[in-house]
């Protein structure tokens, strides 16, 4: 990991530097019960949180429930956020993603997914807002980095992160030997991380 440049406060990129610090500050104020700061935090991050939940769950009603649960957890746990260990945004999105994946893997949801599986493919159901997001500089950088992965790496990362599938399921879906999908996921993430200049996050 020595090749990674250290980023003390954990902003994901140069562009997001001051933004990341501001978001972390909003969380700190929220931890002290500042509801206005939390409202600002919500407004600054909710399109990403909700978009991720929609992408994993493919169901707006469930995505709304998961996103709301995640924000309430955020409020409750804001004091536990440590800017030295990562950005506020990744903290939030990690919570949203875990909740969305837990939901999608529940017995009820898996039935729905099984029946929906036939018409699933790699295409994201973009809405107008998602289209607008492709115009953002950051999104363009990320798309370029995704495009630089090998096909198998990209598919593995997308199916795991955006599709909410386990690495074993991903292996089956991509006709990879069981046990190799996890390597593709890791290799893909390393390559993207380095391409996007994500700094090493300080660890306690």
């Amino acid at each position, binding site marked *: *990991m020595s090749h*990674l440049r250290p980023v003390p406060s954990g902003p*994901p*990129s140069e562009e997001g530097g001051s933004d990341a610090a501001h978001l972390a500050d909003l969380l700190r104020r*929220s*931890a002290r019960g500042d509801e206005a700061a*939390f409202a600002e935090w*919500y*407004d600054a991050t*909710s*399109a*990403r949180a*909700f*978009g*991720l939940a*929609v*992408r994993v769950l493919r169901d707006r009603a469930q995505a*709304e429930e998961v*996103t*709301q649960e995640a924000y309430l957890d955020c*409020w*409750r*746990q804001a*004091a*536990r956020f440590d800017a030295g*260990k*990562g950005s506020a*945004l*990744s903290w939030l*999105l*990690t*919570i949203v*993603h*875990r*909740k969305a994946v837990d939901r999608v*893997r529940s*017995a009820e949801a898996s039935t729905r997914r099984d029946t929906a599986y036939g018409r699933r493919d790699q295409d994201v159901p973009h809405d107008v807002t998602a289209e*607008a*997001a*492709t115009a*953002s500089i*950051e*999104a363009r*950088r*990320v798309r370029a980095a*995704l495009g630089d992965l090998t096909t198998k790496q990209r598919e593995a990362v997308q199916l795991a*992160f955006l599709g909410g*599938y*386990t690495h*074993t399921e991903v292996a089956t879906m991509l006709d990879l030997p069981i046990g190799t999908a*996890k390597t593709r*996921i890791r290799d*893909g*993430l*390393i390559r*993207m*991380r380095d391409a996007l200049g*994500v700094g*090493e996050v300080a*660890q306690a």
Partner: protein
Amino acid sequence: MNQPLSDIHALSGAYAVDALDDTERAEFELHLAECAACRAEVASFHETAALVAETETVTPPDSLRQGVLAGISRIRPLPPETPETPETPVTSGPADELAVRRRRLPALLVAAAAVVLIAFGAVLWHPWQHDRTASIAGQVLQASDAVRITEPVPGGGELTLVRSASLDKAVLVGRDVPDAPDGKTYQMWLQKPGEAMVSAGLMPHADEPTVLDGEAATASAAAVSIEPADGSDHPSKDVVAVFPLKPDQSGNDAR
């Protein structure tokens, strides 16, 4: 499913994007407690994944904002964790709820609950810092001689029994298993060759790894049944899973 130790680092990517099953997740989190390189790598993957989410933004409806802001006005933010209380695990619920559980639960279940909190806490943010001691459940899951048997549950989901003969312990891990009906609970059983099933404790939350009471090395079978909330002396007919085991003849000598 069982990862050779040398291979466990390779799970960092799948862990960071929540692509591990529950057992692998629990195993990897135990590994994270001891591996600073993996902790740093996972953190960097979380940042990377957050950027990927940048390509998927969708504006939520106003009703969601209203729901969130109405919700927080009724929730008290938790206090920060203080370094003076090293035993405080990261919990998804209020700390006093945990204290109640601690007083109420027998020691083994508390050990299992610690793993549960690591593995299934609603909010996970480097929880491994707080729980470096591998619990009994964790030791069993990581044991080199751990044997796994997975059985489907009639009501949905599956149960995995993990037994380590050398540790003389077994752990049950559920996945997508529904709660027992109202007023009922899951109860675990162990059987020695030629003997009747003996209670190995209750499993109130099927999706949480639970250590079985009793000597697992010499057992010839384990089972899970649905029983009245207080448990039973003998299993009812409502058995949801049976795990045939090979009794370890060396027994505890293998320790």
